[in-house]
């Protein structure tokens, strides 16, 4: 891969001091840098005997040429010369975040897709100069709870071994309770015959592990250290849909040209939009979205305990839930949802007061601890026909005290967004570009990983039967698999949000009853856990 090539050839990206130079100089440096490495790549990997229409992808004149030959009714078939730089990419991944890199990694490690010519477009400097994360560095507050399903995807792609070299925290227990003191529930991995419910890993660890795995392979990847600015798709608006001349069919089957903000451009058979919730690919493709903001913010930060934490905790407070996730050593991560006003107050208050507020929120602030199990608890819900599970008898626990704030506090607005379409001819969205969920259940990136690994598999299936991987019929298979899974999860999360963001007053007893029900009715609970742990089964509840 290009990054690997970089390291091998000692051709680093422009160093940070270049940042003070003029943008055009920078652009030139970036271009040179890319070209040099691409040339080495070509001589290594390209026999280059293939003929290809020069100019098709190398600038605006290509479209103009195509258009003019279309109008003259003749395309010069003889005009086929060798032009290495014009060779289109098989895939261009716009956005080298966790999800984009998961796709690149999965493609690079599978026999049927590792030959694909892939470009990655992202100005994030860690793509070219991988972060070296030291064990003793304090944990980054941006973490993800990865589900067993995600873990097995990573293992399958050979990237999990790198995660294991860094800080990560498995947890096998989850306790969820309510500030009214009326209900609590405990989820245990044993309920679903699993060893773990999930693992909390810093985002940068997931990202660099995927990069490390890609570097292990000798596959060909080119990084464009820039941002996508525009996308030209054929048919351009000048070709009418009902125009059935062969000139038009040429245009209709055409590739996509991407133009970057540094002036570089490329041509590709498939554009993958992995560029996050504000996806430029999605906008340029004209995909509509459905979504809404919750007038709520989430504060995230890292905290330290005096002992290690091995459980994921979540407590519902009048203004939203607070979650305390173990991230290894004596650290935990906090995701605390509240009104925007409260969020800004809590982000500026001094550290000691904040720690006090967190301890209150996780312990007996707002209301009492839930009582231990009712002796008649199991009878109460027996009409719903559940069996008892082990954890039903586990008693309520108080989470470990926070002793110190270990990172900056950051506040994010909560919102839900879903793209109405994930695919069009030669375009596909994955990760947050297709769906962004609030961080409440820590599912966001898991859905994205599900997208990435599914798309990789389906591209492999297409390659196996010689399909053009930009064909919409192939991409629809991906959409058909992922859309229902993502929508189901979003509905669950939205439901959670709706139920728990409002203080029902006296009706809180219903919510508490729901907790009890969840705690006692094991098939139901198994459903919830298996869904939360990434097995695609829709819980009938909450």
């Amino acid at each position, binding site marked *: 891969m290009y990054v690997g090539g970089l390291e091998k050839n000692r051709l680093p990206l422009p160093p940070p001091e270049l940042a003070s130079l003029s943008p055009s100089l920078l652009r030139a440096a970036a271009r040179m840098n890319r070209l040099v490495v691409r040339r080495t790549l070509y001589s290594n990997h390209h026999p280059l005997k*293939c003929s290809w229409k020069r100019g098709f992808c190398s600038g605006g004149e290509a479209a103009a040429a195509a258009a003019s030959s279309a109008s003259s009714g003749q395309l010069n*078939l003889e005009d086929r010369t060798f032009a290495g730089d014009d060779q*289109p990419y098989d895939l261009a991944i716009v956005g080298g975040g966790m999800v984009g890199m998961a796709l690149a990694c999965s493609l690079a490690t599978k026999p049927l897709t590792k030959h694909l010519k892939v470009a990655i477009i992202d100005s994030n400097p860690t793509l070219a100069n991988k972060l070296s994360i030291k064990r003793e560095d304090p944990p980054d507050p941006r973490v993800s709870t990865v589900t067993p399903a995600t873990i097995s995807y990573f293992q399958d792609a050979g990237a999990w071994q790198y995660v294991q070299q860094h800080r990560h925290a498995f947890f096998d227990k989850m306790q969820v309770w309510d500030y009214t003191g009326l209900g609590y529930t405990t989820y245990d991995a044993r309920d679903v015959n699993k060893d773990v419910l999930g693992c909390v890993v810093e985002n940068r660890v997931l990202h660099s592990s995927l990069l490390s795995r890609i570097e292990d392979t000798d596959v060909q990847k080119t990084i464009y250290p820039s941002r996508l600015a525009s996308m030209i798709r054929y048919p351009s608006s000048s070709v009418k849909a009902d125009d*059935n001349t062969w000139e038009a069919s*040429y245009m*209709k089957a055409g590739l996509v040209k991407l133009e970057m903000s540094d002036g570089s451009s490329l041509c590709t058979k498939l554009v993958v939009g992995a560029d996050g919730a504000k996806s430029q690919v999605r906008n340029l493709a004209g995909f509509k979205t459905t979504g809404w903001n919750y007038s709520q913010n989430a504060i995230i930060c890292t905290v330290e305990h005096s002992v290690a934490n091995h459980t994921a905790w979540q407590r519902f407070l009048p203004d939203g839930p607070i979650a305390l996730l173990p991230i290894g050593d004596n650290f935990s991560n906090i995701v605390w949802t509240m009104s925007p006003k409260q969020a800004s107050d809590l982000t500026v208050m001094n550290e000691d007061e904040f720690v006090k507020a967190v301890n209150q929120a996780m312990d007996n602030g707002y209301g009492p601890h839930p009582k231990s199990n009712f002796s008649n608890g199991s009878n109460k819900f027996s009409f719903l026909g559940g069996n008892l599970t082990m954890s039903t008898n586990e008693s309520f626990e108080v989470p470990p005290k926070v002793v110190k704030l270990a990172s900056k506090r950051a506040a994010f607005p909560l919102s839900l967004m879903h793209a109405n379409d994930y695919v069009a001819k030669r375009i596909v969205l994955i990760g947050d570009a297709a769906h962004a969920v609030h961080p409440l259940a820590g599912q966001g990136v898991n859905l994205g990983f599900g997208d990435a690994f599914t798309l990789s598999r389906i591209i492999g299936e297409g390659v196996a*039967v*010689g399909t053009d991987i930009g064909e919409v019929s192939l991409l629809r298979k991906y959409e058909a698999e992922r859309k229902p899974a993502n929508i189901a999860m979003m509905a669950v999360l939205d439901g959670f949000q709706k139920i728990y963001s409002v203080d029902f007053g006296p009706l809180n007893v219903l919510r508490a009853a729901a907790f009890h029900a969840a705690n006692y009715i094991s098939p139901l609970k198994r459903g919830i856990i298996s869904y939360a742990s990434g097995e695609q089964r829709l819980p009938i509840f909450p």
Partner: protein
Amino acid sequence: MAAKLLSRLRQLDTRLISPQHQRPFFRNARLFSGQQIPSSDSHPSLPPTPTPTPTPLPPPTAGSAGEKRQRTSSLKDHELAKFAAISDTWWDSEGPFKPLHAMNPTRLAFIRSTLCRHFSKDPNVPKPFEGLEIVDVGCGGGILSEPLARLGATVTGVDAVEKNIKIAHLHADLDPTTSTIDYVCTTAEKLVEEGRQFDAVMSLEVIEHVADPAEFCKSLAALTRPGGAVVISTINRSIRAYAAAIVAAEYILHWLPRGTHQWSSFLTPEELVMILKRSSIDVEEMAGFVLNPLTGKWLLSDDVSVNFIAFATKKAEG
């Protein structure tokens, strides 16, 4: 079921079919299937078949054994005109050729697995057909030729319709991998005359459109190197195929322009096996395509009653 069918066929002696039966054989559904054929009278809007075809039969091939018979072309002019009329839409996956596009991954899965096994190629690589020369007879717009090229084969695509070849050429040029396909406007017979031979000969969804299937198969056989392979797919001449292909595809769903198919020129799997055998080509594997109406996906199955695909081989020399 397909396996049973094959073994039953192997027991059949080709001598059963005496020369004078050869012609009517393809016109007579009852020979193998005794099915009731619905009368088209009550459905004036339905296609005029399945009563015997009104098209004139090709001249009898009754030439004496020693005499060098004049090669009858397998072309059927009115069939070709139909394809020329809609050739602009080859690559519109929602257009008239939608069924071919939809079936493509399924039939390529069949071709991939049979050819990899036959030619001892590793199926776990992106280009398992590297080193194989394949001809796609009746390639149309190249719906099959392009994937074959992506799988590494050296592909020659031939079609009798000039316009199809033009479209195929233009489309393949969009991708460096497929721009290597050699598209020629010619017929199987002419390739035979030129003495061309290939490791594998494909002719999918063509034989039902040719004038003389037996003669056509002879040409396909001649194009195959000893030890090589032939893959043919077509529509069965069964009542279900009649309903599915003609009534549904042409009349109800309007996938295909009316008259694209002529029921009487369909072959049954048994007939296909027989005529290939007479050209010294042995059918080794056969599968049916079934459409799941809910998912719109085609699956390989052993139900050969509507669409079927056959993999056959030519004996190695010596």
